[in-house]
């Protein structure tokens, strides 16, 4: 089920109403209801994969119990390897089987050896990368004795399948989310209102910014003929905002929905495009995944290697394609120099002189964003050759060609205008609320500022949302 579907508009109030009524019955009843709702939510896409979700969850539940009952290091190691093996095995099969087989065949073909190996028509279960990683946080935490295993299967199954963040995160830590299933949730009116506002902001990000950008980006990246560098640059920049608005929009709706039920999820984005360096960018972008990967501590030289491996794996996590791996490696390479040389321009960026500080900060933000866009080109292109072609165009004199006539001929001029205004509004609002934990928390004088702002966002979302064929959230494919 999509958040931006009519089905969800019916599903959410219904689930919430029953959930509230079940408060009188008890916590377990609420958890059971949450579990049922989450399985319905997931099964709405394809009920056949409910078995996979159930199976991996059952495995992790039993592994948790096993870890709790044994003190023998050998058995504990075997159990955690079982959990990791099953989760990553399922993920690997569904996500990477054909990729590795095809890459293997291609590598041998270059050496003159032609292999025949079976490729399967494997459907990628939606959200598999998210829920397998989330389930792993539980068994790893129990293995490390950071938390006790739970004996309550309903609570645990509801935790793994928790519908607001099941298919596209945030990837919650068991230590953070699981205990919330075992204490009565307090539904505060302020948190409820804040949740609604956060959902509204998420819908604005997705429907207005991401989907309008997507129309332009898809037309440019799928264009058969040659396009000038100016158009390619425009498409690349718009993709940077598309993927941000799409994914952060999903996270906002997930966080907002969870708050309606009295749950707190971790923040997944914190205005990443205002970052002044790549390490900062990765503290603000897809926080739940980057912190998942950022567990190891090592010496500086080892740290650089670890960073590169981590970013490469992060790229591979996104999908079975070399373009994602290049995207990961590029981001690793952006981050590594900071390990050795520290923050460039750190002193002028901290200067008391506003005429020194502001241009320096602007320059740092711009450079970080430009490098990010280069990496996004690899992320968006279907092939590495395609990404190179775009970069070559952008680096050519055709970068200076006016894009207006071509956009008009492609029927994109109006949509680009909408997307540009939407991005400007997004950035202005994000700058305004950059230090707030929740979206659309604009000040202490809520009634005077927040509600008119919410009304404005609502009206903009209603009138300027994309209205073509429905577009899935990008991160559903991961």
């Amino acid at each position, binding site marked *: 089920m999509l958040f931006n579907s009519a089905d969800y508009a019916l599903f959410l109030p219904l689930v919430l109403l029953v959930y509230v009524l079940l408060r009188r019955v008890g916590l377990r009843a609420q958890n059971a209801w949450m579990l049922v709702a989450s399985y319905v939510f997931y099964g709405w896409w394809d009920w056949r994969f409910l078995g996979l979700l159930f199976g991996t969850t059952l495995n992790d539940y039993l592994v948790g119990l096993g870890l709790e009952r044994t003190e023998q290091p050998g058995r504990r190691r075997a159990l955690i390897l079982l959990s990791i093996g099953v989760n990553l095995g399922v993920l690997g099969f569904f996500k990477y089987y054909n990729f590795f087989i095809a890459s293997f065949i291609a590598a041998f073909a270059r050496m003159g050896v032609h292999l025949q190996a079976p490729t399967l028509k494997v459907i990628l279960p939606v959200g598999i990368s998210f829920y397998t990683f989330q389930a792993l946080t539980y068994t790893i935490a129990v293995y490390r004795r950071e938390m006790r295993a739970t004996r309550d299967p309903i609570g645990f199954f509801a935790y793994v399948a928790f519908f607001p963040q099941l298919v596209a995160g945030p990837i919650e830590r068991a230590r953070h989310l699981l205990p919330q299933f075992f204490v009565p949730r307090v539904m505060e009116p302020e948190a409820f209102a804040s949740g609604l506002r956060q959902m509204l902001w998420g819908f604005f990000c997705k429907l207005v910014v991401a989907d309008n950008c997507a129309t332009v980006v898809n037309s440019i990246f799928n264009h058969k003929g040659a396009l000038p560098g100016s158009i390619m640059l425009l498409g690349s920049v718009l993709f940077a905002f598309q993927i941000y608005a799409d994914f952060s929009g999903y996270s906002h709706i997930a966080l907002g929905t969870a708050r309606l039920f009295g749950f707190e999820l971790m923040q997944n984005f914190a205005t990443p495009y205002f970052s002044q360096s790549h390490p900062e960018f990765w503290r603000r972008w897809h926080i739940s995944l980057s912190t998942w990967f950022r567990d190891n501590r090592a010496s500086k030289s080892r740290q650089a290697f670890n960073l590169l491996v981590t970013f490469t794996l992060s790229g591979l996590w996104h999908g079975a394609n070399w373009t994602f791996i290049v995207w990961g490696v590029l981001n690793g390479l952006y981050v590594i120099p900071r390990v050795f040389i520290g923050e460039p321009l750190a002193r002028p960026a901290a200067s008391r002189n506003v005429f020194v500080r502001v241009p320096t900060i602007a320059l740092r933000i711009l450079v970080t964003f430009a490098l990010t866009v280069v990496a996004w080109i690899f992320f968006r292109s279907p092939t590495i050759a395609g990404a190179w072609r775009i970069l070559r165009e952008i680096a050519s004199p055709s970068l200076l060609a006016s894009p207006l006539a071509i956009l008009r001929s492609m029927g994109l001029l109006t949509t680009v205008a909408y997307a540009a205004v939407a991005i400007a509004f997004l950035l202005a609002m994000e700058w305004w609320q950059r230090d707030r*934990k929740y979206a659309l928390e604009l000040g202490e004088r809520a009634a005077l500022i927040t509600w008119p702002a919410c009304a404005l966002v609502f009206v903009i979302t*209603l009138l300027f*949302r994309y209205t073509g064929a429905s577009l899935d959230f990008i991160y559903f494919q991961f």
Partner: protein
Amino acid sequence: MSAPDITSVRMTRSFSWLRLFSQCLVAVLSFVAANVYTYETSGFFQREQQYAQQVSTIAAHTNVRVVFAGDSHFGVPLNDYLNGNPAGLAYSIAYGGDSLRECFAKVRRVLETTPTIDTLILTADPHMFGRGRLESSNRSFADRYFIQAWDRSGVQHNLWSAMLQQVPLFNEDFLQYFRKDLGVLLTHSAQHARAAGDPLAWSRLTEAERMKLAVETGQGDHDGVGAVEQPFVWYARILDLARARHVRVIGVRFPVHPGYSAQAPAAKVAGIDSFLLSHGVAQVIDLRDALTDPKDFEDEDHVNEIGAARVVTMLEQKLQRPLR
């Protein structure tokens, strides 16, 4: 600028459920008022009301035996010509922009409400089988008939989604209309409009100008004719409906400029005819070249009120029954 703390929860202000509900109530009432205002003032929903009224008004035409269904090729000349007479024998439910899906929804509706109908004259225009008619601007107008029939086969996602589309500000077709209007307003560009009120405007153009316009429009309208399955599926469903109610179906093509009709490949048109006749259409009457005087046309692909009278006379002769 540092990343904010992502683990702490801060609740400082007092905020009651009553206050939240009252704010939500104000928001809901404002939304309702905005919808009512939009519905009453928007040109899009005025069209929608006209669309629904055209279908419902057939109930007042007690003598109706023949009903016409199609797009503007039928609607522009026939709606005023036939529907103004409550004692008339024929009635048009054709509307500009309709695809065969909308035709199906409306035909089903009028066959249910008007059992006296014995003949359906249905568009057989080649462009109705092209790519340009896969999505109709009247999609949400016709959704109401699918909802009334509790038939999810014709709606985009499901019936619930179609119901939400009936809320003016949730209606995606309205938003496209709104955005288009806004674009026109912002760019000060003139909208294409037919020469309303002047039935002879087309005849005042030179033949070269007429040919140029006709070829351009014909090329656009006939893109992918016969290459998409959907229109054939809807046509077959209309024929099934008619068969179940013992209604005779005649396929008709109205007169157009030769430059327009030439853009429909002859082989594709023959294929459409073959499909129609093999699926139960009693007769295909092709009048595309029947009128040659520009004074009979409003533009390259629509006859005017003068041409309408001549076309109806031709149809009366072909069908050997009165239509007026």
